């Protein structure tokens, strides 16, 4: 249980002057368990089954670190963007994060939170099954925002405007903790702030009385780089759809999610639907080539647009491991490999991710079946890259040149039509009866040998020095 900053003044929660405008956001937790009057025989002592708020809050925040909690907040904005722009173009939508020693603010113009949603999901503890679920969201578990605010500080204010309604919610966490049986937050409708148009909608969350460790982090510098790095990866899809995200006024740029689409290097593209009704999951798999960037080679797995894994270079996806026989260990010669798996569903709980959204639920049947398929479509691409490496070693760069000429395009621009990776057959060197020799020497020495021999490739250095040796020493 993190402690609050010492010596800070407690600010009262929402002033209760106008009861009509206040809406209680109730918990969905079980009420006090029935426990009294149970003593029929012997001495029974009642043990309370009701969690204390402190315990509840500490459980809520223990599995998440600070920066992922902030990324969770951005999920809410991206969910808003999705509702606002079903066509997937997020131009003009923005999320700005400002954090300093004594406060944290995130603000967006992504539609705002309807009062009804705030009451039923956003600020409720746990989800009421009867309330149904929101469509196609990242924030499936109804915990993201609460978890983040408890992780950050001890006072928070949410202001939100939609085109239909608007509200403000002020919570003094210390005050709330001090009332053990009252779990409600009080939300005040603010009709004056109802947005006149979609462009004026939005949500601002401000957190104050930051916890000591949070304040320390935000006093430093590295968190800005770390958060930006996390966001450009996790929300690369939203960023590549032109959403603007900034951290203390510095814009976050997406990592390039690219794929070469021009023949003869068209990627394998598959589209599948698994499950039925609201729990149906649409799956799009892409495996192919992009620029040679060792950092970005590997598999990327998205759930409702949020990157949950990747670029993965080990056995969680397709690379060698106990369950992945047949595929090699990831190596830099695969730096051109790109695999993308997009899982999308109206019901976020049907997706194979963990509650913290930072990983895959490896037990999910959907994931296990999908992984097999990912492995199958990876194989031809990996085989191609190995042959390419052999061709290159032999001093033949004809396929490399073809690849250099093919410009990779953003994955978002890839047509949904099915296709299969069928690279041009490669002329592989080495005649019957030949063997290859591979060795490495310091670059300076090889460069010197090149200039002495008057050749330009490493291969020629090998061949010429070998010939030179045989000339001098051979029979």
């Amino acid at each position, binding site marked *: 249980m993190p402690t609050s900053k010492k010596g800070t003044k407690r600010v009262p929660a929402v002033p209760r002057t106008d009861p009509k405008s206040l809406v209680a956001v109730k918990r969905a937790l079980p009420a006090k368990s029935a426990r009294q009057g149970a003593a029929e025989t012997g001495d029974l002592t009642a043990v309370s089954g009701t969690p204390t708020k402190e315990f509840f809050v500490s459980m809520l925040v223990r599995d998440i670190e600070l920066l992922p909690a902030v990324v969770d907040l951005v999920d809410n904005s991206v969910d808003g963007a999705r509702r606002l722009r079903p066509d997937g173009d997020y131009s003009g939508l923005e999320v700005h994060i400002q954090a300093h020693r004594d406060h944290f603010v995130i603000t967006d113009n992504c539609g705002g939170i309807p009062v009804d949603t705030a009451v039923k999901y956003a600020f409720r503890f746990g989800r009421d099954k009867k309330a149904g679920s929101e469509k196609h969201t990242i924030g499936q578990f109804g915990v993201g925002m609460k978890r983040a605010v408890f992780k950050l500080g001890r006072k928070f204010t949410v202001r939100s405007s939609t085109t239909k309604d608007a509200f403000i919610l002020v919570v003094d966490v210390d005050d709330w903790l001090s009332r053990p049986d009252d779990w409600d937050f009080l939300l005040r409708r603010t009709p004056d702030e109802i947005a006149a148009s979609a462009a004026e909608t939005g949500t601002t969350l401000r957190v104050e009385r930051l916890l000591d*460790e949070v304040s*320390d*982090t935000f006093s*430093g*510098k*590295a968190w*800005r*780089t*770390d958060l*930006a*790095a*996390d966001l*450009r*990866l996790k929300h690369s899809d939203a960023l590549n759809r032109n959403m603007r995200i900034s*951290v203390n006024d*510095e*814009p*976050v*740029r997406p*990592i390039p999610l690219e794929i070469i689409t021009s023949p003869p290097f068209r990627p394998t593209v598959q589209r599948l639907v698994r499950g039925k009704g609201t729990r149906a999951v649409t799956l799009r798999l892409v495996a192919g080539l992009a*620029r040679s*960037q*060792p*950092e*970005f080679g590997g598999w990327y797995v998205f759930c409702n647009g949020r990157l949950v894994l990747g670029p993965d270079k080990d056995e969680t996806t397709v690379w060698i491991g106990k369950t992945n026989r047949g595929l090699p260990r990831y190596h830099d010669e695969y730096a051109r490999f790109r695999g993308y798996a997009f899982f999308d569903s109206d019901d976020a709980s049907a997706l194979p991710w963990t509650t913290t959204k930072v990983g895959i639920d490896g037990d999910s049947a959907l994931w296990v079946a999908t992984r097999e398929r990912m492995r199958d479509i990876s194989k031809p691409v990996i085989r191609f890259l190995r042959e390419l490496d052999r061709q290159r070693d032999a001093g033949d760069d004809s396929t490399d040149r073809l690849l250099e000429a093919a410009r990779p395009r953003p994955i978002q621009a890839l047509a949904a039509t099915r296709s299969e990776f069928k690279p041009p057959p490669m002329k592989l060197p080495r005649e019957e009866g030949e063997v290859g020799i591979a060795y490495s020497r310091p670059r*300076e020495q090889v460069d010197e040998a090149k200039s002495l021999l008057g050749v330009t490739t490493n291969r020629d250095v090998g061949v010429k020095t070998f010939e030179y040796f045989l000339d001098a020493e051979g029979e």
Partner: protein
Amino acid sequence: MPANWEDVHYLQRPAKNIERKMLVDVLSRLERYRHLGEFHYIGFGSLYFVDFVTLHRRLGITRMTSIEEADDPVDAARVRFNKPFRFVDLRFGHSNATLGAVNWRRPSIVWLDYTRRVGDEAFADIETVVARAARPCVLLVTVNADPGPADGRLDRFREAVGDDRVPPGFESDASLARWGTAAAAHRVLTDEIDRRLSIANQLAGAAQRTSYRQIVHFRYQDKPRMLTTGGVLHLSSDTRMIEDCRIFDSPFAVPDGEPAFEIRVPNVTTREIQHMSQRMPKRGAPRFDRIGIRADVAEQFRQSSRYFPAFVDADLM
């Protein structure tokens, strides 16, 4: 790996020479806080040990450790021969392997004076220094910050530092052009010190919490573009005493957030040096158009004149 002294003779690096002297000017202001003669200097002396000689002469430091990567016994013998003082302790091996075993119990000045680019090598050494060095510790880092060819610049930078360390604003080849790579490297180094410090502070008790205050940020270019940054790691409770040193009164000290100090060495002849030195105005822009010296060259000379390498450098023993 050939020893880096093969690359260029130190006498041909006038900007580096000037940087060293400016650095001493900044460091000497810490005398008010702690007697610098008591500090332990840890550096990469190479064959020339110029920094060792300078710091001994100017600051009176007599406890020194030089880390030398040379693994060839002949090279090592040569390093031993060139060791300028008996009290310089030589440690052979890569800094990543040897730095941990240095005696970190006294206040120290550590200069991680790499000729290579920022990357894992620097990160590992920064981790060692921040985790082990007693406070106060002056940590200085120099890296090669040359942007190289435009094509693939970002990819190379990303590969060197890791994608998650690429700072926002430096995500294109063009952003790393000219001094862009130096600016990015500065941010990467500062971030790394901050990350390591925050871990050290989580482990330390409240009384042992430390802060980092940047004091220098130089850019210079003898051939490749280079970057030096550094600051003081000190007990947070000493903040006031550090402020009392008025470090930033030195024209060469640069606090975090201010633009880097760019050391520019004008190419001037000995005759011109003597002429300009005699007539340099106390304030205002120096003008020497009469002898054909352009205004920017005169200004560069004015800024570095006190530190300008003499015909025979006085740092030679």
